[in-house]
């Protein structure tokens, strides 16, 4: 009888799970990237909920607070890129005990290791012939605007990559693993019990 009830309960749970999908969760996620001199990012709950109106704080490598922002109705935030020693840590406080962080390396920040902006692709052929001086200037301007354009175009891709890196959803494997552990612990407890009984008898 007990077996039957257990089986029914487990089956009911399995059905509920399937109907709810494995989307539902409670973990908070945050990611951030640099676009055109600004630090942008988003906070969200797996399953699509946006972390709205939450405090976002940015710390440098030594733990010094560099800046703060608040997420909007889409869960997104944006602030001027603060200066400091990389890597930065972006911390989202989603309230009610929810907290998530995301680490931004020097590379992701577009900074050289010293914390200075990387030299923009060396000097464009410094020893250009005088006749081409005008061309060199426009080349520098071109590189700058091209850089901004690329930042803009690559922003969404960076965002998606950051999201993928930070987001490891819950898989069926995790659920089965957990149930297996519980079964194993039960077995272990039963084993200990039997050993103790044997000891008492012997």
């Amino acid at each position, binding site marked *: *009888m*007990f077996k039957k*009830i*257990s089986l029914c*309960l*487990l089956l009911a*749970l399995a059905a*509920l*799970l399937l109907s*709810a999908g*494995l*989307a*539902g*969760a*409670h*973990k*908070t996620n945050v990611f951030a990237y640099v676009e055109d001199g600004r630090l942008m990012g988003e906070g969200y*709950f797996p*399953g699509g*909920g946006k972390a709205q109106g939450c405090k976002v704080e940015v710390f440098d490598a030594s733990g010094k607070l560099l800046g703060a922002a608040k997420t909007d109705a889409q869960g997104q935030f944006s602030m001027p890129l603060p200066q400091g020693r990389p890597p930065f840590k972006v911390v989202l406080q989603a*309230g*009610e*005990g*929810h*907290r*998530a*962080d995301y680490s931004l390396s020097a590379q992701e920040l577009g900074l050289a290791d010293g914390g200075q902006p990387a030299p923009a692709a060396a000097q464009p052929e410094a020893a250009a012939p005088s006749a081409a001086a005008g061309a060199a200037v426009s080349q520098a301007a071109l590189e700058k605007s091209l850089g901004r354009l690329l930042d803009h175009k690559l922003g969404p891709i960076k965002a998606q990559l950051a999201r993928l890196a930070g987001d*490891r959803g*819950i898989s069926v494997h*995790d*659920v089965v*693993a*957990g*149930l297996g*552990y*519980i*079964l194993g*612990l*039960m077995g272990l*407890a*039963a084993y200990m*019990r039997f050993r103790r009984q044997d000891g008492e008898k012997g």
Partner: protein
Amino acid sequence: MHIAEGVLTAPLLGGGAALTAAGLAVGLKKMDYDKLPRVALMAAVFFVASLIHVPIGPASVHLVLNGLVGLLLGWAAFPAIFVGLALQAVLFQYGGLTALGVNTFSMASPALLCYWIFAPLTRGESRALALAAGFGAGSLAVLISSLLVALALWLTGEAFVGMSKALVLANLPIMLIEGVITALIVDFLRKARPAMLGAGGI
């Protein structure tokens, strides 16, 4: 309602761990080993329930079912919920491992309280009273858990009234749903296997 890593202060984490250790000691001592499968089954139910996400209300909430666990296990709710929460933390990244003590206490102590208040009523003659007791256990456990989480967050400097209001409001749908689920399971067990609601608990 899982509190994440890095939200609470060290004394609070220590206090929660001590309370949980005490609860675990009593729970394990009182646990009748013949009812080991029941404890394991309820641990599994608690572990899986957190995946069932309820997309109502402003926040990300999921089933807890600690009222049901308490009603069927009594003191043994401590080990069952502890195992469930530990596996959720490791496999789902719900809540921090260091916050395990606080999280276990805030889920398991309302379970025990509901056992004391409601378990005798579920064994009574009156079906209506048993249904009401099931509903009460399911919803009250979530309510008290919300308040305990709010209390823990208040001790770290958040405003208590606003925090508890937000948490209780977010969990209001869960209270109703769990009340109904627990009442239905109590009703089923009364008919199918009254021994599971039997006197003495575990």
